[in-house]
């Protein structure tokens, strides 16, 4: 009787291990849906991601397409609010987030980031007639008396531009009273055109597109901050992080990433 129980136990353990291996084999990359790589983005960030008719286009979209190809998966893009991307990735709703996203200390607490694939610059857009020529022009007084002028700066909510600007003056920001957070970068630029804000701080590439599309705007020569863009992946999925990193390094060494970037950004 005892012997039979033992044998049964062994058979069950074996069966379970087999199941485990089987399920591992099925979705090698451990994506939420088998065979599909779900990418979350906020498609109002040209030239990194934007919509062209019913399709998505941009640097991130094309690089994601190549990564999915490398991993043998089908790419599916979900267009969500920028602030919902990291939460959604961590909870497993999306496999990865790719939205011109900068690596920050705070974000690293919640998700893993891949290697960098592009460099971003936070630029300042003002009206052509504006007297501002650098970020320092937003302040008046010296030393301890240094304070922000009576101005408002528009940003896209939850982007690094927002997070930096909303910080205190001591930490290099402007303080929340001087920042208006809009849902999209486009809204912020429209507010600048209408004269509701004095400047917009946003990533350089979209900034160029906005300035090209709206008359009477210019980008300041001195940038506000420089940063690295990366893909965010859930902390619960280190396998996918590794696979994406190796796919990225392959694409980078073959020159394909540079090819895509230079296609969208005229040097």
């Amino acid at each position: 009787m005892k012997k039979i129980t033992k044998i049964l136990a062994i058979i069950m353990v074996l069966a379970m291990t087999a199941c485990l291996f089987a399920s591992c084999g099925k979705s090698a990359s451990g994506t939420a849906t088998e065979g599909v790589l779900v990418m979350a983005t906020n498609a109002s960030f040209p030239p990194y991601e934007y919509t062209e008719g019913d399709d998505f286009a941009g640097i991130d979209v094309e690089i994601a397409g190549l990564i999915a190809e490398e991993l043998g998966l089908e790419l599916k893009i979900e267009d969500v609010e920028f602030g919902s991307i990291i939460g959604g990735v961590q909870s497993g709703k999306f496999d990865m987030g790719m939205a011109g996203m900068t690596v920050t200390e705070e974000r690293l607490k919640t998700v893993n980031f891949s290697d960098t694939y592009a460099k971003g610059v936070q630029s300042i857009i003002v009206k052509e007639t504006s007297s501002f020529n650098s970020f320092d022009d937003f302040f008046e007084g010296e030393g301890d008396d240094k304070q922000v002028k009576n101005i408002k700066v528009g940003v896209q909510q939850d982007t690094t531009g927002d997070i930096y600007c909303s910080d205190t003056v001591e930490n290099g920001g402007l303080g929340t009273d001087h920042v208006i957070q809009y849902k999209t970068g486009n809204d912020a630029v429209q507010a600048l055109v209408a004269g509701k804000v004095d400047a917009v701080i946003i990533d350089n590439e979209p900034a160029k597109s906005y300035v090209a599309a709206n008359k009477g705007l210019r980008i300041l020569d001195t940038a506000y901050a420089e940063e690295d863009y990366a893909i965010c992946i859930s902390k619960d999925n280190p396998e996918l992080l590794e696979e994406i990193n190796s796919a990225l390094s392959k694409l980078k060494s073959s020159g394909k990433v540079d090819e895509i970037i230079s296609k969208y950004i005229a040097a």
Partner: protein
Amino acid sequence: MKEWFSDLAGQFRLNFIDGDRWTWLLEGFKMTLIITFFATLIGILIGVVIATVRSTYDKNYESMKKKGGIGFRILSFFNKICGLYLTVIRGTPVVVQLLIMYFIIFASSTNSTMVAIASFGINSGAYVAEIFRGGIMSVDKGQFEAGRSLGFNYIQTMIHIIIPQMFKIVLPTLCNEFIVLLKETSVAGYVGIRDLTKAGDLIRGRTFSAFMPLIAVALIYLAVVIIFTKLVARLERRLRNSDH
């Protein structure tokens, strides 16, 4: 279980204590209340005016049409304007109206709170107008005739006899409209206003956790609505006393 609790405490600290983020919620809550309060006032003001025009037209349409004359033409002109207002405002989403107000109509204004109050007030006015008109029309015709036969003129009858009865009829629906308005102001974030919902969103965008900020925001809205509903229930009970 213990781990779950300590995790919860950590989440609480991260979302509300660190960087004094609870003050964002407080500021946002104040903003929500300010917008709701003034928008309600504007809404009731617009509602009263439009309901007066529309119900006067409805009530006197037949008798005035026979007589014709300039008075009837003016009244029907204003009635048409009110009808147009109701159609446009009720036929478009409040977010779209807010964005139109912010980016087009009041494009030059830098006071976004005022713009939000105006657009929520104008929006609410359309609904309040119909609530009031429904109330006026549902007071029995005999009440009006009794007032007139006692020597009151049209306006006196309205003020002393119809409106007090109407108020009791519309109170529950009016309360409903206020609750809807309070929650509708949650879209104010679209034009960069830091209201309660936006405050929760901003916390979410910085801590990347959904649970704490969203639940906190939901509880605050819920608490306001519960308190308000209790107050209105008490008022209704008071008004009912005069029925006996």
